[in-house]
């Protein structure tokens, strides 16, 4: 039976079809979906910060160390870098008026993710990044499809979680 595995902040999960991976409430965090189409195996990483520079207590908090850890796990499963593709989402700036690049974590997360994936020669097949809205996503490992939704303000002042994009 297919499961939907929820991935919390600063964590990751690896699974294979027919399972799906999901995470909710992505703001400035960056979510990286790595997919090996031949084996229909994928990983979802939900990272908060770009680089491991200061607090080393959780390597999954940072893009660089989390990706390296997941790549190691893929290699142990016999999945190599050329087998992988990536889709990324997040890196928003939730609060308008906080324009200092130094404190714009979302932008720095996007830059570090793209830099790292380029270095590893993992092609980015789709992205839904930046902006100022939070996102949630589900990564279907049967097809490799990533479906992204965000909370939209409706006319009656209530919020709907509507479909935003399919990658």
């Amino acid at each position, binding site marked *: 039976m297919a499961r939907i595995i929820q991935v919390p902040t600063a964590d990751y999960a690896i699974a294979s079809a027919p399972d799906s991976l999901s995470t909710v409430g992505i703001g400035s965090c960056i979510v990286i979906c790595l997919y090996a189409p031949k084996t229909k195996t994928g990983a979802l990483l939900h990272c908060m*910060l770009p680089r491991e520079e200061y607090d080393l207590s959780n390597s999954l908090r940072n893009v660089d160390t989390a990706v390296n850890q997941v790549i190691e796990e893929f290699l142990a499963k016999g999945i190599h870098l050329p087998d992988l593709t990536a889709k990324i989402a997040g890196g928003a700036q939730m609060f*308008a008026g906080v324009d200092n690049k130094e404190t714009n974590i979302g932008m720095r997360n996007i830059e570090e993710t793209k830099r790292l994936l380029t270095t590893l020669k993992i092609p980015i097949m789709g992205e839904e990044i930046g902006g100022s809205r939070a996102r949630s996503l589900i990564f279907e490992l049967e097809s490799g499809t990533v479906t992204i939704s965000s*909370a939209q303000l409706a006319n009656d002042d209530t919020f709907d979680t509507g479909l935003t994009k399919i990658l």
Partner: protein
Amino acid sequence: METLDAFSKDLLRETANIMAQKTAHPIETILRQKTVISKPEIMMQKMEFVADSLGQPDEVRDSVFIRILGDGKGAAVLLMKPEDSQKLLLDVDKAMRTDALREIANIVAGACLGGIARLLSLKLMQSVPVATSDMSRAIVNEIVSEVGLTNADLLCALINVAIGPENIPLSMVFIFDTDTTNLIISKSKDMTNQ
């Protein structure tokens, strides 16, 4: 932070109590409604666990974020369910409700920070408040990412307020980084001569 002794934790609880006491008066003055303040909750957590301890990750919250600057580094955050903030600000023109919420957060944060700054002889300043409405986890994670950038251990003081006859809930959360937490403990110990 995990190794804080019982006395240090008591000092932090007392600091949060002082902040909670300072919360009621400005809200009652602005809104002209009675408020009930709950006993504040103190949490010491790694940054990645803060958001989920404050509510369901995908629930939408109206929020106001104020940076704490000066001798300490941290954030003051107002969180409300959108339906509650609409109920609270029913008499305020719709276009002005976000401004009103920003002002409430600004005044409450000022009163709370002023209270502990005077008590502990600290210089604490606050930034211009910024507001957004979105998923709770996304809002809080952005704030803790900034506060916890250099050290992921954070002190969170959660003050829950019930306003008016309908007990409309409002939460104020104060988040401090490790250095500020240690400074508060040290200044409190100086005060008590311990």
